[in-house]
């Protein structure tokens, strides 16, 4: 059974599904929702087979598929996963199921909506599994197309500005990566990521290549100061779009840094780690304050995402400072593990928070905090979930939000007290904006008639929020399976990046 080309199936089944859904939709609109759900569930089921068959004791690439794609340039259709990509693929297929369920009530062109999401998730799976740099780039760019349509067709009033901004920001960043990849190809003769990771070249070109990667992935993460597209995109996107954007798409930036920037240009990364750390700390602290000032719930969560993604980039680039300070590698892996855990955890929590806002928005059609108050009185069950997720967002121990942040802060102590100090400040800020939002929206007297007439969760919403709550708590209470899954790959990465590649 495990001889199946699972990664190809995971990529192409949703694409085929999207085509069928889009084609059927014109004639039988009632069929598309169940059909899309079946495709998403099948894909999720197949991705569980990956988890079952995955050997967590090795850092080797597994489930490898390789055939020649463009012979003239030695480009391969090359897929494979290791401990870094598997959790993200699982997250992606799970979120896909949830957004399909979440979009059940879409009435404007539902077949295109479902098809766009299936396509988007398929491309993201392909991207996480791509082991050829050009194949990665193709998936990386191609997914802009469905997301552009999702925000532009089903988004809010200012959706066109938001979606064009989203597209152009990401496109602008990534073209520099294209130049860097081409340069690497001309220098090494290969687009294979594994070979590029072994390719030795001098510090100055490394710095240029590193900066190109950094621009591409920093826009995606997004890091301060190229984050400005995210609040716009989040606010205008439909709920499903926001969920995917926060839960999976932002992780692509972090994943790209782990897969490309760190191992291909380790010397430049060590040289310029101060830059990334500084930008991360600014994101964590400054954007934390910005989040505090928001009056729109989606915008607040968007800024909170930027701040939390700051932890990811911080964790990724702490390793060099730790190795310099302590001279050993044991602590260096901690930051990387923490960053990866934080990515997965933020995927659940931010996705859940956007779904929660979506639940309110569906009923009241407002995202303004001031339009609510005392929601807990009319929607007690919903309030329970929402408070859990906002607590998790502020890093409550026992939830997944705590694990990653704690690991990164711990690693930051090894690097420098002041890094840790600044990073820990976010725990206070995060708690401040999360809990203040909870207080204003959920607690207190019932603010107005809209809130008074609210109905509590229906079965569909229960299902989505329960799944995410289970993962948030499960990962918080017992993160070991996830960390174990990634451990060999992280160790391998640490050893790799500590060796100079200046030939």
């Amino acid at each position, binding site marked *: 059974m495990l001889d199946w080309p699972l990664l190809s199936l995971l990529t192409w089944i949703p694409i085929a599904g999207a085509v069928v859904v889009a084609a059927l939709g*014109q004639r039988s609109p009632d069929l598309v929702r169940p059909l899309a759900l079946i495709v998403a569930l099948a894909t999720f089921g197949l991705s569980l087979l990956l988890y079952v068959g995955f050997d967590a004791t090795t850092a080797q690439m597994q489930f490898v598929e390789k055939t*020649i*794609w*463009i*012979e*003239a*340039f030695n480009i391969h259709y090359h897929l494979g996963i290791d401990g870094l990509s598997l959790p993200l693929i699982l997250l992606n297929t799970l979120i896909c199921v949830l957004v399909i369920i979440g979009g059940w009530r879409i009435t404007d062109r539902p077949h*295109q909506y479902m098809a766009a999401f299936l396509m988007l998730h398929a491309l993201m799976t392909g991207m996480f599994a791509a082991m050829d740099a050009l194949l990665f*780039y*193709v*998936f990386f*760019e*191609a997914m*802009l*197309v469905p997301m*552009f*349509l999702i925000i*532009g*067709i089903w988004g809010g009033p200012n*959706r*066109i500005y938001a*979606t*064009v901004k989203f*597209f*152009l920001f990401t*496109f*602008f960043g990534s*073209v*520099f990566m*294209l*130049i860097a990849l*081409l*340069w690497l*190809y*001309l220098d090494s003769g290969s687009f294979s990521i594994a070979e590029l990771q072994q390719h030795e070249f001098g510090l100055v070109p490394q710095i240029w290549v590193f900066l190109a990667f950094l621009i591409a992935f920093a826009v995606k993460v997004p890091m301060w100061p190229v984050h400005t597209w995210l609040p716009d995109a989040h606010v205008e996107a439909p709920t499903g779009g926001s969920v995917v954007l926060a839960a999976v798409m932002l992780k692509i930036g972090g994943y790209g840094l782990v897969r490309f920037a760190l191992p291909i240009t380790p010397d430049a990364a060590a040289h310029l780690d101060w830059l990334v750390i500084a930008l991360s700390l600014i994101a964590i602290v400054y954007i934390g304050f910005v989040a505090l000032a928001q009056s729109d719930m989606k915008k607040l969560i968007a800024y909170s995402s930027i701040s939390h993604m700051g932890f990811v980039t911080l964790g990724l680039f702490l390793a060099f400072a730790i190795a310099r300070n302590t001279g050993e590698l044991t602590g260096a892996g901690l930051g990387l593990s923490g960053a990866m855990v934080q990515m997965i955890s933020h995927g659940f929590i931010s996705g859940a928070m956007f779904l929660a806002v979506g639940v309110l928005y569906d009923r009241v059609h407002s995202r303004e905090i001031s339009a609510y108050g005392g929601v807990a009185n009319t929607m007690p069950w919903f309030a329970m979930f929402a408070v859990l997720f906002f607590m998790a967002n502020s890093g409550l121990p026992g939830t997944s939000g705590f694990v990653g942040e704690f690991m990164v802060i711990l690693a930051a102590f090894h690097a420098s007290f002041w890094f840790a100090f600044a990073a820990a400040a976010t725990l206070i800020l995060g708690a401040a904006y999360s809990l203040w939002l909870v207080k204003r929206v959920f607690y207190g007297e019932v603010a107005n008639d809209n809130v008074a007439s609210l109905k509590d969760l229906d079965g569909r919403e229960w299902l989505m929020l329960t799944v995410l709550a289970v993962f948030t708590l499960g990962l918080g209470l017992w993160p070991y399976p996830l960390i174990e899954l990634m451990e060999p790959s992280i160790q391998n990465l640490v050893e790799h990046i500590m060796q100079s590649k200046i030939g």
Partner: protein
Amino acid sequence: MTIAELQLALPEIFVLSMACVVLLADLFISDQRRGLTHTLAVVTLVFAAILSLRLMMAPGEEVLAFSDTFIRDRFGDVLKVFCYLILIGVFVYAKHYLRQFGLFKGEFYTLSLFALLGTMVLISAGSLLTVYLGLELLTLASYALVAIDRKSLQGSEAAMKYFVLGSMASGLLLFGMSLIFGATGSLDLNDVSAALASGMGESMLLTVGLVFIVLGIAFKLGAVPLHMWVPDVYHGAPLPITLFLSSVPKLAALALAIRLLDNGLIELHADWQGMLIVLAALSMVLGNVVAIAQTNIKRMLAYSTISHMGFVLLGLLPATQQGYAAAMFYAIVYAIMSAGAFAVLIMLSNKGAEAENLDDLKGLAKRNPWHALMMLMLMFSLAGIPVFVGFFAKWQVIAAALSAGFTWLSILAVVTAVIGAFYYLRVVKLMYFDDPEDTEPVAAPVDFQAVLTVNGLAMLGLGIFSGGLISLCVSSF
């Protein structure tokens, strides 16, 4: 002149004969049965394609014929085959428009076939004379095509402009050729190349001649600063003529550049490279920036053409095999993409009114979802977004430029590609995010729809399976 030589030129001879047959046959075909002329022209192209494919499959390298004035090589065969295929699409698209606008006459087919013949002669040109002969045959037919709607003032104005400026460009080119001839004493491209390699010719004379030749090429490509005619002619000509001008003649311009600069003047490559850098950079920047400001979609696509020709020049200027192959790939792909884009405009043209404003595309996704999807793919392909084939065209030329050390030019190219993405996205935005002003469904004949579908899906298919076309282009050099 031997039989073997005639066989090499069989496609040209066939197209010439058939162009005459179409011209004569059309006289005896009544207006109701004008479809026959169309069928005859399409059949001509199909058979020409078979003839060229047979030559392409035949083993052997470059062969010279007719006292070295004619070159038969793989580059020429491949390019000709794509000319036929694209022209079939152009004919099918054009028929729908010509019928609606009362222009369905045999002249269109005869002139197009003569233009094709000119293109073929140019593609296979082995001497400065055949280069000029082919070019003039192509452009004279094009002038007449632009003025095909005699009652249209706009069309006549465009034809006049095109004629005056085009003649001047031909004059420049001819003057450049005469200087090269004066300096090297030969008209054959191979002899010119050999003479230059042996150090013959006064350098001042050669440089001046080269400047005129490059200017002529730049005009035919529509590269900045010799681009002024492009928006006016694209705008003024009837849609099917614009469609024609943006497809086959672009392949001819590529052949013109490769035959003259590579086959003939490769020894002067250090000189022409600098000129092409300026042309490429200006075209990419100006084309993409000015396109943003257009509200007329024909003008927008005209400026988009200018920017794309900048990319073609980017592939040509390193003067490497990889670069030529990339430029060839780019030109072929561009011709297919722009044919599809203009076809959608033809489809949207109602009786008496061309769809030429961007607003005419509003809400197309609701009026005709399938063809809106085709247009979406065409636009993303033009913007250079993977997995569409336009991306593979762009990255190949950029790879070629990078490998020749033009890092800053490559960075400029990708930045202008981002700027360019904006106006292609605007088309998608109009189709998908806006509501239609006119809710009438868009209809087109079956053959039109079929060709447009193939054209749109080709963006995806040629992208996913780009390896084949890339190998074909690489093996041409």
